[in-house]
Every structure is written in C-alpha cells, then in structure tokens.
C-alpha cells in the first residue's frame, strides 16, 4: 500500500484556502437550509393537522412527492431543469455585500424543500405526542389555538422533537456533498479537484472524511447540550451524555426514533 502520509497530514492540518472555503460553505449551507427547513416543515406540519381539508391534501401531496424522489433528482430539476424549461433561472446575487452563487441558492432551496418534508413529519409526530388533555386545559383557560400552540404544545413537543431533528441535521450536513453535482464548491467538490490534480485520492478523501466526522461530532455534542436543557425545563434530569449520543448507551435506542433517509443517500 502506498499512502502519502505527509500529503495526508498537510491536507488535514494545513488545508488550502479553497478547501477551508469549501468547509465553510458546507457548514453555512447546512445551517441556512436547516433553519429554512424548520420553518417550512412547521408550516407543512400545521397544514397536515389543519381542519381545512385542502390544506391537509396539499401538505400530504408535498410530503409524498418530496419523500418519494431522490434529493439528487430534485436538485437537478431545481437548478438545471427549471432553467432549461425557462421556469426559474437562479442568478448570482448579493446579500449584504456577499456574493451568493446561483448554484448555492439552488442548493439551499433544494435542501430546504427536501429536508422540510422529513422534518414536517418529525414535527407532526412531536405535536401529536402532546396529550389531548394539554390542548383541553389550554382551551378551558380561554387560550386561542395559536396561543396554545405557541405556549403549551410546541414547548412540550420540542423536547421530543430535538433528538430526531438533530439526526436530520446530522444527515443534512453529510448530504451537502451531493451538491457537488450542481457545481457548488463545498468541501467534497474541492476535495475532488485536489484529488484530480494530485492523484492522491485516498489521502485527500481520508482527510475529508475526518472533517465530516468532526462536523457531525461537534453537532452531536451541541445536540446533547440542547437535550439536557430541554429536559431540565420540564424537571427531568435525564443524563444524556455526549459520550452516549456518540457511541450509544442503554438509552440510545429510545432517544433515536428516526433517522433521516437523506442521510442514507450519502
């Protein structure tokens, strides 16, 4: 086996400028897409629970459509397909003086759409898990549906939603590597070009793997902190250590109800 250790360590500890930019893009796209997907997902979840039938139908159709097709196909349709059909053509644009490439915009839109379909189901399951007595208690106090949702139902549902939502975010960070297909120069694409120039494919992708691992590990630790906070807010002192979240523990199985199918794509 020939493994160029010095090349590997160089890329691991002193990564090039483009590589760092790729890493930053991976993180930023992940965070923005997750934030957007949470908002859209909540909206879809509320539509699915609505008393108004057309809203329920539209939401169900959205979830069926998005979950039934691969992220890759969705991205190509959004970025290339819609432009080719003269529907929407993403243009490079600036927000606050920062250039945002057309492909990055399309990537964020695509990830939001894809992830929101999964997230809406997580949110819906979370909302459904709050006992009906809580809705009734809020109603008998004269709270409106919206107010009850904001103050009574969502805060309780959140505690149950965070573990699966965290898993979704974990999957989302990894699935950004798929964006290379539409030319977003995130970490994976940058690594690919380094590999093409140096022929050191194993070395460079080993370094890339470690970077992804670092990202998901940091997130797992943050997630465990959030879970501890939320549990403390309802007076449950469940000890979810980062160690358990990373390597599993006796409670691991109950704390990880669903994994995001897009995580499995990559």
């Amino acid at each position, binding site marked *: 086996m020939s493994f160029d250790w010095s090349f590997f360590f160089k890329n691991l500890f002193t990564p090039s400028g483009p590589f760092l930019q790729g890493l930053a893009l991976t993180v930023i796209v992940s965070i923005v897409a997750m934030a957007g997907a949470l908002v859209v997902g909540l909206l879809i979840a509320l539509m699915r629970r609505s008393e108004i039938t057309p809203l329920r139908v539209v939401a169900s159709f959205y979830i069926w459509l998005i979950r039934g097709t691969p992220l890759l196909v969705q991205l190509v349709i959004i970025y290339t397909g819609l432009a080719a059909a003269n529907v929407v053509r993403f243009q490079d644009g600036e927000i606050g003086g920062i250039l945002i490439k057309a492909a990055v915009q399309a990537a964020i839109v695509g990830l939001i759409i894809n992830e929101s379909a999964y997230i809406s189901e997580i949110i819906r399951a979370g909302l459904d898990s709050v006992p009906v007595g809580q809705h*009734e208690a809020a*109603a*008998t106090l*004269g709270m409106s549906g919206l107010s009850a949702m904001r103050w009574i139902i969502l805060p309780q549902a959140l505690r149950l939603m965070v573990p699966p939502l965290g898993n979704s975010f974990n999957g989302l960070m990894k699935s950004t590597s798929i964006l290379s297909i539409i030319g977003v120069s995130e970490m994976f694409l940058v690594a690919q070009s380094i590999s093409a120039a140096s022929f050191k494919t194993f070395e460079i992708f080993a370094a890339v793997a470690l970077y992804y691992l670092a990202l998901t590990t940091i997130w797992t630790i943050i997630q465990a902190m959030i879970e501890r906070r939320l549990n403390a807010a309802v007076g449950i002192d469940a000890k979810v250590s980062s160690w358990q979240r990373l390597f599993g523990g006796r409670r691991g199985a109950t704390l990880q109800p669903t994994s995001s199918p897009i995580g499995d794509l990559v």
Partner: protein
Amino acid sequence: MTAAPAIVTARDLTCTLGGRRVLDGVSLDVAPGEVVVLVGPSGAGKTTLLRTMNGLETIDGGDLLVAGEPMGYRVDSTGARRDLPRRILTKRRQEIGFVFQHFNLFPHMTALENVWHAPVRVRKTPRSIAIPQAEALLARVGLADKADSRPNKLSGGQQQRVAIARALAMKPQLMLFDEPTSALDPEMVGEVLDVMRELAADHMTMVVVTHEMGFAREVADRVVVMDAGKVVEIAPPAALFANPQHVRTQAFLSKIL
C-alpha cells in the same frame, strides 16, 4: 333562588358522540352561588354534560345557556343551529373554570407559571399584577411554598390544588369539576375537598362530578342523579340520601353508600 337568572340553563339537551346518544334530554338549572353535585353510574354521561357546559363537546339538540348565552352553538336568523365561531367560544371559556380528573397541569411550567400564564397571555393582565395574584391564589390553596416547583415534583393532591388555582386565576363565574379526587391516593382527597369546600363557602357557582358522597351531603345545594344519559332525580342531599324517589337512585346509592 328564583330571582337571580340561572348561570346554567339546560333544556332537553341531547349530545351524540361516536354515533351514541350520550345525553338524552337533560334539563337542569344552576343558580348563581349554587353547588350542584352530579352523581351516577359509570357511563351515565356526567363528564359529557360537564364538557358541554364549556363547549368541549357540542350539543345537538335542546338548549344550553351559560350566563344567558348559548354555549358551543348559536342560532341564526332562520332558527337553524350553527357552530359557535371559535373566536367567540374561546372568549366565553375565559369565564368558566374547568378542573380535570388528571389535573392536566402544564409540565414545562412551575406551579406559579401555571397559575399566572392564562391571565397574562389571555387577559393581557400585566405581570406585575398577575404574579402577585397567582401567589395569593397558591397561598389560598395552601401551596405558597411550592410556587417554584414543577408539576412532576408535586403530589397528586398538590397538583390538583394548583389546577384549581390555575382555573380561579381567570376569575371565572362558574367552576366545573370532573371527578377532581378520583385520581388521588386516599390520603390526598381531603386536602382537595377542603379547597373546594372553601370555594363553596365563598359562593362560587360550582358543578361537581364526584363519588365523594360525604362532600355531596355536606356541601351540595342539590344533587343530580344521572343514568343512561338522563337526569333521573334532582334533590337536596339530605332528602336524596334519606329518601331516594327513583328506583335507579336507590340502586345507585345502595351500591356506593
């Protein structure tokens, strides 16, 4: 009692749930300041009757006036019965307190927050007023020292007393209790009944579903016996327990006394 207009007026009301006629022509008046106790065998429709009084269930026949207005429905100009718009129903519920068998406290809030939450969020009472009032209510139910405890750190009896304080915080005209002591360990029943006894002494209008016949005998102005969706007998407790008129009342009382 006949002079003051009734707070609750039910006339021949019917309510169908899941295809079953759960209330089948119930008539009942509750006067201001009166304590009415509902008793009857399981499945008689006691909970359902209570729930119709604040619109958790909607009646499908007869009349149900609460504070003079139809509850959970409205009658349009052609005389047809329509659902009450949610906004109006929400507003009307602010005047009616409801205490559940299983407390239904908000687990993510302290006892004190549970009590001041609705006045602040619903009535827009400033916190500077609502919080001291909530503290006073907790003191009234004997839980001043538990203000900062979360529900899961309280006993059942304590939770139910917080739930009563929470309902009282909205300054309701009418308090509805659905078996408030049935989920409690026997040694905690007394502390909750004591709070309810004091409320009655303060002339709160109350409709109480309970199996506590001692409470009914002592506190109720009238006892309503229900069976199979109907009211079978209404009488002051002394008369009812001494001399039940209806065979089904006799059967029911012989089982529980």
